[in-house]
């Protein structure tokens, strides 16, 4: 294999494995928030921003993977 194909494959592996946990966590956060809104719909406008912030924090691992794979693809 030449270097370019190794780069592409490693970026793909990095993204693929790095996003598994994030996907689970995002779904978990959303389902818990929906559950809470379902129990008490009047606080939904307080839960929604917190849910978005929580999701963004969960997503940071995937973003690290993304940044790493972007660096592999375009900068290394």
């Amino acid at each position, binding site marked *: 294999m030449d270097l370019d194909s190794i780069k592409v494959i490693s970026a793909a592996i990095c993204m693929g494995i790095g996003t598994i946990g994030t996907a689970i966590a995002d779904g978990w956060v959303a389902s818990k928030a929906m559950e809470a809104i379902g129990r008490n719909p009047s606080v939904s406008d307080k839960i929604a*921003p917190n849910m978005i912030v929580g999701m*963004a924090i969960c997503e940071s*691992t995937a*973003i*690290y993977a*993304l*940044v790493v794979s*972007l660096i592999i693809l*375009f*900068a290394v």
Partner: protein
Amino acid sequence: MDVSLPSDVLFTLGPLRVSNAVFAAYAITAGFILVALAARGRLRVVPGRVQAAFEMLFDFLFSQFARAFGSEERARRFVPLLMSLFLFILVANQFTLVPFVSSLVAEGAPVFRTPTTDWSGTLALALVTIGSAQVLSFAISPLGHVGQYLRLGPLLKARSFGDVANGLLQAFLGLLDIVGELAKVVSLSARLFGNIFAGEVMVAVIAALAVWTQFLVPMPFMFLSIFSGLIQAFVFTLLATQFIAMSVASRGHPQEASTGSA
């Protein structure tokens, strides 16, 4: 498809290399100053439409700040920093959506580039945020702030072998907190950079797939990147609020200051 991670240098001002991302940031800042000067004389007690929209935005964000800081007076002191962070990131993320801005080219390089797609830009924002949190914490209680990282207290008070082991563990955890602060900078900047840059790359990839995907097909992806730009501006501001509020609230009892999220 041309995707470049570093931004292109437009010109140099002495030792400063002004890249297109920095130039766009200057343009946005100049626009803000102009809007602020123009709006200064026109504020009314009974707001017009634009003023009402800004007041709604301010009220929403200020309620978040007040909740994080615990009191409105304390939150009011940090509004200038946090609001300008929010407004700057909000406008910067959508900056290249302005018509003709992204098609201006000088000497082979685009004149404007979304400031948040350059890691240096987001790193600067994150360093300002975390740096101000550190400086504030140090100004409020210097000994408590240093003691948060150099936890020698339990080690000096040790009476038995178990206490020594515990003290060593505490000292090590304190050193880990220094790494945690650096990780905050990296995570705060990488989150914003990754989201916005990925949005642009995704649109570029879709547009480069085939001839017929250059029109209309990238639109849902552009919508997605606009949405994530809005969300990330909000998230960056809220996380900055949390970090600063944590360092302000940890006055007196530094041990209770939690190290926060990733």
